């Protein structure tokens, strides 16, 4: 059950659009900064396989200029 957090840097002028896109994606929670061009993305998936698929989908988004993982946890399913 991986939980990961990322700093996501959007392409120029795309922050709001990107925030909208990410918040519509399954397994994603987004927190945009008010005053800087950066977003926090927290992902929560049910398995490593699902996590890989999500990562692939994220890599397809052209509005993302750079995405850096900050922390990652893998927790048992029953908790």
């Amino acid at each position, binding site marked *: *059950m991986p*939980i*990961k*957090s*990322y*700093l996501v840097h959007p392409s120029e002028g795309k922050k709001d659009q990107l925030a909208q896109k990410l918040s519509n994606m399954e397994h994603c*929670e987004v*927190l*945009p*900064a*008010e*005053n*800087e061009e*950066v977003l*926090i*993305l*927290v992902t*929560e998936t049910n398995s490593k396989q699902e996590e890989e698929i999500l990562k692939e989908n994220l890599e397809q988004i052209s509005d993302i200029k750079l995405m*850096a*993982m*900050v*922390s*990652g*946890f*893998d*927790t*048992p399913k*029953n*908790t």
Partner: protein
Amino acid sequence: MYQSVHTNRRDFIKKMAMLSAMTAAASMFPGIIFAKEQEKGIPAGANLDWKKAPCRFCGVGCGVLIGTENGKAIAVKGDPKSPVNKGLCCVKGYHSIMAMYGKDRLTKPLVKKNGRYVQTSMKEALDLVASKMQETIKDHGKDAVSIYGSGQWTIPDGYVASKLFKGCIGTNNVEANARLCMATAVTGFLTSFGLDEPMGCYEDIDHADTFVLWGNNMAEMHPVLFSRLLDQRLKRGVKIIDFATRTTRTSMAADKSIIFNPQTDLAVANAICYEIINNGWMNKAFVEEHCNFSKGLTNMGYGLEDNYKFTDKPESISFEDYKAFLEDYTPEKVSKLTGVSVKDIKYLAAHFGNPNKKVMSFWCMGMNQHSRGTWVNNLVYNIHLLTGKISSPGNSPFSLTGQPSACGTVREVGTLTHKLPHGVVMNKEHREFAAKIWDVPVENIPSKPTYHTVEMFRALDRGDIRFMWIQVTNPMVTMPKLKRYRDGAKKEGRFIVVSDIYPTPTTDIADVILPSAMWVEREGMYGNSERRTQYFEQMVEPPGEAMSDTMQLIEVAKRMGYEKQFYYKDETHIEEIYTEYRRHHDNKKHNMAPLEVLKSQSGAMWPYVDGKETKWRFNAKYDPACSNGKDFHFYGKKDGKAIIWQRPYEPAAEEPDTEFPYWLGTGRVVEHWHTGSMTRRIPVLHQAMPHAYVELHPDDAKRMQIRTGDNVKLTTRRGEITLPASVNERGVPAPMQVFVPFFDENMLINDITLDSFCPISKEPDYKKCAVKVEKA
């Protein structure tokens, strides 16, 4: 059957992940705002007045902004201007204001009459407290009255308590619950350096390359600081090594987790020193210039008997003596005892030994609540001293604290039996200095300490103490071997006063319960782990007749005839007390920042000299108190040199045997702050962690056919308790060990713990006793 205790664990992990990312962002974009998260829960259209304060909970001392409207605190967010947390909070911090508004808040004084509590006015209650104290002194002597306070006391609370009891009444029966958590850190600092508190500061985190966490579950106990470590890993690739007796969230997030057998950290630390010397990693120039070698007494005992006394007898030794002593601690010999592989011992040593890496050690209760705690503190200092990795940015042995003012009040004001605000009661000059500022005859202050905390409660049980005033702490949950001390407090002829904000197991033993004003319902200051003193103003009115602990003490002092010493005016008493208190520390080694500075910024670190705080003590580049003309000056010792101590491994007071074959260790959880008297009244935190549990290793659980939620009976020589099991959930103990958090007043694990303590610090060892484990 209980439901799983970790229903919302994933929410907390998500919060942790979010916080880590926010910290990383705050470092890259100073002043960054995440309004959605920070202002969650603020009513739409609210016209809030935001004011700064240090957080009410742990010793990290995060800066928070509190939003008030119509006389009520309704929102809290991290203060982006605070250098401590840079705008972040942990889950407790974000919910902190809710702790003021629990439904069963104490608002009226209660006096026990014929076995029932009767409401009375504050005036009558304080009259009763003063008269009872005077009557006790008349009948039984001044050492029959006592006060037991806390690291949650504000600086003014602790200061007036010490002045009243030590300066005016004339008894050293002043103790605080920091004896149960930080006393060992104090004696560690004093024996190695001659002065208390860390030489470095949190800024060390931004410079260190390796972090060694000694029995310190930072991810749960100090989450905001831990997120700063994670941020540095992202930015600079630093290494985090978790060295512990149990696998925790910290272990999971660390680069390396090393598990050792309980009590054997002493041996591993000595083995690291052996490796440093034998691999030629010692910083010879630093050691020759700035260090001495000493040894002390061994086989000290464990304080299990009443009136136990111990005084160490330090003796100088040579470097060659020390080197010969370490021959017993080769990695190969130590590995067998500790369960740590030779490879891992060498791995740890190599991090300290690498001259190109800066190393920070963090510790908290694992090393402090230890029957040889002072020794293991000394040993970690040895490692840093041998390598010269100390008192410079990124090289920092750092003892963390658990309460908001364990440092500011208990350690700096000196609310322990042997202490004065400046110095100790045993020293004539220190007594004269305090007596002059307090405006009392020096003869008032006794020259001998009386009772440390465990012995104070033993004295209450024996009847040597007849009156005890307990403020802002909950000893009827936290004392080890609790049953003895609960029964003792309930005996005939004892009079107990408890000042608190909610009913607790401690108010249950009270004859008088005084409702206290909490945190920003009054004005005050806290001092955090990095020597930072932080001010907060009164933002809201306390409920009913609740009154600050400072004012309760002043009122009783006046009733006892000490109007001259307690001259403070109602409107300005906090400023007057702080101004008076600063006189005790008026020197380059400890000067406190003026109040106007504390009001204008997010606190200041002492020593505050010529308008500047001191980030790294004992280093001539940063510390104006250094005067020996060298690069470092450990001025707490007469010759300016720190001490490298020869301290051996010795076993714990009680170890597993055939009858009680498991180790029992106790501790905390991220959702609850200490005994949970505040956080259990915050619905979201209580629901996330509604009751205590016992963690078992999966192999032990399988062998006994125990699953998560099954009831488990724990039996020690002190008694038994039944709790629900937790298997492979939050934390995983090593085989033949169990762990129980102590926050739950309905499952009092301390009824069965042992009251052994470190003979030097007198701090109990809550991490080790022998227990039998059975499926209930």
